[in-house]
């Protein structure tokens, strides 16, 4: 009998396919309804910091340098009012084997897949994670398939994604390139079923445990360099894994007072699954198209329970524009001699704006960089943007930026600013999404306890939000 491979039939088999492909029985952690024991899940299936460090060291992952951006800091001092202007430090994650922090995630996922005896790994990603999984699979002798959302219906490929595809192929992976659409997940399920490979999901507890070392190293290195933990760590925010893992690592190292700030490129108004909007975005990650939906409904991912839960850790969320990040990418290359990729510099852009309002004796860490080159450089992205009809100009980004229409490169460093996106708004949206998915607005005691943790909120606040988003009061 042949299997029914229609969209609905495959999606209906997702739980069963996933169980085989991730090797985790998520049922074990369910408390009641949507409530589940997050910490138990992280403990039982994750790895300890020590184990993760050992595994990562085997494949040259981690222990990346942390450097003070002295010239940028000089520039900040020149711009800041008296007494203000925090010092920025940068964690140079681009020196990982495949050129980004994603190696930390991939190292643990692929190690685990090998330990469980899988013959290969599959990851659905258009980002640096593909190259990371491919690189780790090469090292551990596993086969690898990377599924990318890459083209619009005219076969126009996004240059940055094409470059990431090239990198995957360089490590010997099979790259499956799809046109725009959320059915990427459907096709990944089909591939998992066909091959019996491991789903190296970005959102498994292994992937998140892999990032904890990043936060841990930052705490240790800052202590050594400055004698204390940083006042803030700025994290480029997309799917939520980087912020979750970094924050957990910092806390495990004792840096419990450090503020965790998420930063995304503002692409609000562009639809992520739209064929025509696809090539109007000149950042393929680190933007609001992932940042907001994944924060307000983490369980939309490719695993039943997402281990990346940003609202548990994020203290502040800020947005910056595409033009500002391109400007800062030039700044990093020309003032600090570090040519690094665009998306990772989202957090650096936000850090510059934040440093101006922080005190001069405070420190702020930008927790990643990524490799760059063909397809990824600002010049490559802006050349593509111009071909797609975007207006590119110098000006004041905060006033003139229009995602999908106008990209504004600052005329002066004083125009680097951020837009605050209230965390409370995200928490309210979380409740709204939850009510939509559950089709009810009365929650059990256990579910309420879970929400208090997942949203870091009081029962009163949660009840307020339920009231605010419910149609029938």
């Amino acid at each position, binding site marked *: 009998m042949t299997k029914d491979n*229609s*969209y609905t039939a495959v999606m209906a088999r997702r739980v069963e396919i996933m169980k085989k492909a991730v090797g985790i029985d998520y049922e074990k952690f369910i408390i009641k309804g949507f409530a589940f024991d997050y910490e138990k899940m992280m403990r039982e299936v994750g790895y300890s910091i020590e184990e993760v460090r050992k595994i990562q060291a085997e494949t040259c992952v981690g222990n990346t340098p942390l450097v003070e951006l002295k*010239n940028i800091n000089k*520039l900040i001092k*020149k711009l800041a009012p008296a007494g203000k202007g925090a010092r920025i430090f940068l964690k140079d994650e681009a020196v990982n084997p495949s050129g980004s922090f994603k190696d930390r995630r991939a190292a643990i996922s692929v190690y685990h897949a090998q330990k469980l005896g899988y013959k*290969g790994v599959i990851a659905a990603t258009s980002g640096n994670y593909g190259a990371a999984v491919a690189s780790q699979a090469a090292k551990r002798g596993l*086969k*690898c*398939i990377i599924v990318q959302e890459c*083209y619009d*219906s005219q076969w126009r*490929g996004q*240059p*940055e994604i*094409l*470059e990431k595809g*090239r990198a995957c*192929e360089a490590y*010997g*992976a*099979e*790259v*499956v*390139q*799809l*046109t*725009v*659409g*959320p*059915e990427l997940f*459907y*096709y990944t399920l089909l591939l998992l079923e*066909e*091959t019996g490979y491991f789903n190296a999901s970005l959102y498994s507890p292994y992937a998140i445990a892999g990032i904890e070392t990043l936060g841990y190293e930052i705490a240790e290195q800052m202590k050594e360099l400055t004698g204390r933990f940083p006042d803030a760590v700025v994290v480029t925010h997309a799917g939520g894994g980087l912020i979750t893992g970094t924050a957990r690592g910092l806390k495990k190292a004792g840096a419990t007072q450090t503020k965790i700030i998420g930063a995304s490129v503002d692409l609000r108004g562009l*639809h992520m*699954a*739209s*064929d*025509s909007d696809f090539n109007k975005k000149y950042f393929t990650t680190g933007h609001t198209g992932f940042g907001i939906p994944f924060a307000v409904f983490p369980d939309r991912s490719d695993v039943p329970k997402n281990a990346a839960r940003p609202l548990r850790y994020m203290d502040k969320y800020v947005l910056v524009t595409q033009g500002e990040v*391109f400007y800062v990418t*030039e*700044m990093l*290359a*020309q*003032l600090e001699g570090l040519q690094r990729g665009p998306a990772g510099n989202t957090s650096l852009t936000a850090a510059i704006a934040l440093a101006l309002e922080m005190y001069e004796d405070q420190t702020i860490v930008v927790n990643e960089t990524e490799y760059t*080159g*063909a397809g990824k*450089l*600002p*010049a*490559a*992205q*802006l*050349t*593509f943007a111009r071909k797609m009809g975007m207006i*590119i*100009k110098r000006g004041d980004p905060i006033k003139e930026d229009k995602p999908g229409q106008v990209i504004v*490169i600052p005329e*002066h*460093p004083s125009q680097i600013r951020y837009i605050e996106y209230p965390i409370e708004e995200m928490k309210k949206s979380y409740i709204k999404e939850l009510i939509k998915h559950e089709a009810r607005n009365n929650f059990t005691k256990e579910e309420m306890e879970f929400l208090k943790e997942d949203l870091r909120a009081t029962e009163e606040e949660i009840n307020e939000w339920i009231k605010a988003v419910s149609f029938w009061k």
Partner: protein
Amino acid sequence: IMILTPQERAPQVPEDTKKVPLMMRVKGFLVDESAAIGQLVTIQTMTKRLITGKLVTINPKYEHDFGEPVPELITIGMELRDFLTGGEDE
């Protein structure tokens, strides 16, 4: 290769995406000895899977590049150095 026709697409996709099929491209080595563009062929991929679909390119090259010089970007370095030094070197 067409994975889903417009009619088979997921219910949640926006209108413009619903009008077009979900398509896929994969690279691999030709199983038969010869073929021509546009023909239905079978290839063996890097993970040794066999896939049948329409041949669209032979030995495709990577076409993404470093981009053209962008006037809005190329003066930024100079401007920032001038700002730091107060334009002293002039």
